[in-house]
């Protein structure tokens, strides 16, 4: 009996080790790229030569890639050294060692998307205590003393945007459900709150209790099919992220309900856009990760120069549907999969 927990422990250690190994490779390439950048621009005054680091939630997510690219360009323009790194998985035990290793290099500024609202607070406070200025990007922590600035999409607003667009697609009737990744993530919790509250404006739509799939498409597929069995009037689903969206699309296809049940998903990653075009998703609520990245670098630079800093910055959101995807004002919100 005692052997199974041991395996799990070992597993966690192994996952963390792999994550470290892979991310280490990434950060070295990142710093090389920015190293040449900082050499070329010397006219940036007080910020020149200062070092900032970005730790994202999931390294391979186009949302964070778009953010990283924009932050890197902005840092280059301001003459800052820039390194970027990110967790291989959305997991506290994977991100914490990354934070510790970045802390050891004592950067002047740290931009981070914490993967948990509480668990990383002690690590971040320690870094802050050592003199590093922290900007929280995308996700945040509950402790208000962490960070000089918090930059994110107004996620509650995003949930409302999703609710309005989905209600319209559903023809204002039927059951709707939210399938999200995990509880306890500030951004998705706010989206769900915004979505659920906004849906009360549509009395003919019944919102079912939220389900969580642990970021596994297979789980999301099984959950959507079970929900269909229990609620044949299901008309709309709000997907927490890309993996969840893929799982839901698969589940609906297997149940032969694709298109009948409308799906709204957050973000506008390349494969989500493909799914929108082929009809397995109906609404995408796109954030503006590039603006988040740029804004965070600006706030940190302002702090280095002793200028005033905005404690909270909200960026805009837009609902993308098949009808407006080709509009240049909308299509610029589609995320990038590489710089």
């Amino acid at each position: 009996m005692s052997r199974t927990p041991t395996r799990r422990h070992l597993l966690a250690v192994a996952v963390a080790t792999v994550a470290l190994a892979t991310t280490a490779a990434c950060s070295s390439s990142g710093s090389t790229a920015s190293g040449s950048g900082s050499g070329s621009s010397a006219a940036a005054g007080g910020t020149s030569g200062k070092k900032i680091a970005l730790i994202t939630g999931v390294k391979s997510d186009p949302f964070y890639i778009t953010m990283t690219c924009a932050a890197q360009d902005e840092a280059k323009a301001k003459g800052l050294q820039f390194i970027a790194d990110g967790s291989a998985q959305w997991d506290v035990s994977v991100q914490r060692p990354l934070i510790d290793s970045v802390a050891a290099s004592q950067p002047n500024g740290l931009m981070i998307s914490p993967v948990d609202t509480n668990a990383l607070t002690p690590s971040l406070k320690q870094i802050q205590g050592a003199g590093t200025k922290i900007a929280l990007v995308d996700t945040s922590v509950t402790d208000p003393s962490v960070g000089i600035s918090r930059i994110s999409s107004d996620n509650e607003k995003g949930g409302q945007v999703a609710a309005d667009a989905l209600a319209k697609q559903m023809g204002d009737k039927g059951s709707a459900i939210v399938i999200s990744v995990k509880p306890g993530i500030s951004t998705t919790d706010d989206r769900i709150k915004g979505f659920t509250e906004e849906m009360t404006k549509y009395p003919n739509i019944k919102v079912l209790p939220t389900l969580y799939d642990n970021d596994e498409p297979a789980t999301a597929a099984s959950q959507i099919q079970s929900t269909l069995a229990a609620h044949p009037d299901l008309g709309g689903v709000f997907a927490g992220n890309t993996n969840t969206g893929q799982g839901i699309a698969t589940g609906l296809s297997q149940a032969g309900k694709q298109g009948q049940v409308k799906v709204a998903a957050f973000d506008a990653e390349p494969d989500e856009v493909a799914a929108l075009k082929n009809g397995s998703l109906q609404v995408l609520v796109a954030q503006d990760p590039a603006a988040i990245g740029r804004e965070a670098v600006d706030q940190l630079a302002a702090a280095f120069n002793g200028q005033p800093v905005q404690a909270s910055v909200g960026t805009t959101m837009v609902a993308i549907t098949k009808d407006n995807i080709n509009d240049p004002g909308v299509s610029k919100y589609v995320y990038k999969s590489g710089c």
Partner: protein
Amino acid sequence: MTTTTTEGVQQTGTPQQAPRSGIPPWLRKVASISEVWTFVILVALVAVFSTAAPGKFFTAYDLTQIAVNAAIYLVLGVGMTFVVITSGIDLSIGSVLVLAAVAAGEYNLHNGGPDANWTTVAVCIAIALVVGTLWGALQGRLVATGKVPPLIVTLGGLGTALGIAELITGGQDPAGAAASNLQNTLGYGKLFGIPWLVILAAAVTLVFGLVLTRTRFGTYTLAIGSNAAAGQRAGIRVGRHLVKVYALMGLLAGLGAVMWLASFGTTSIAGHSSDNLKVITAVVLGGTSLFGGRGSVLGTVIGVFIPAVLTTGLIVVGVQQYWQDVAVGIVLVAAVYVDQVRRKTRERV
């Protein structure tokens, strides 16, 4: 098939036990309790959910969906049953599945993408199966001849396979990894109303259930798990057989990758971190001993369906989903506890 598998296991299991202890028939009956017991739990769950949600749970639609969702785990579980019977373990299956899917997906991507023709689809399937088998054989060789514990070999394999998959793709799921030809047939296609995924999983289960109970390969597997040294003296080439068992696990992980690409249309690199625990849970729930030498494919089928029924049932009834983790956890520990008690009883005799 149901009864023959159970009997078969006992028949093949007995020759190794008989010389040691001379097990009386009543004890042989006890020995099968775990399987019976978990089957009772499964039936009870179905009964409870059917009563709680009449007309919603025990419907053809719902059963099909449960089976579709269980199909990939079932295929992986069949391979894991063989590995666990040799008193081994394979933690790497989720990563091997991802690696095989990525290898096949990359080929598809550069040979037609979503509109790829049947030749490409066939090559993709072959690539996935070969990558899985080779990886499994490599791990088996390290276990067999390197004398590295399987826990460590496959733990290393878990990281390495995922890492290679991430290196190939840059950590992002490549778009266009699955051909619509594959998705529309194996993924969403049906034969007489039964999804192809389910038919494939059932065929794999049936074939390897018979392999375990009716062939020399199966007998050797059980014998090695029961007592590897005795097997060696009896003339079984234990090392070579272990390589085959781990290669079989790899092959089935490769098949799992094909099924995943067919149904999800993407490689889902980040979505397989807990496949190993899910599958090991299913195998242990099904009464296969973690200490080797005893187990059945039928048990694994039950073990796969208990969590699947719980997940679906709790959602249909409308219970908070966290109860599912609690329930599966309790059943798992109870199953291993029963296994331990039975081992003690056997040793005392």
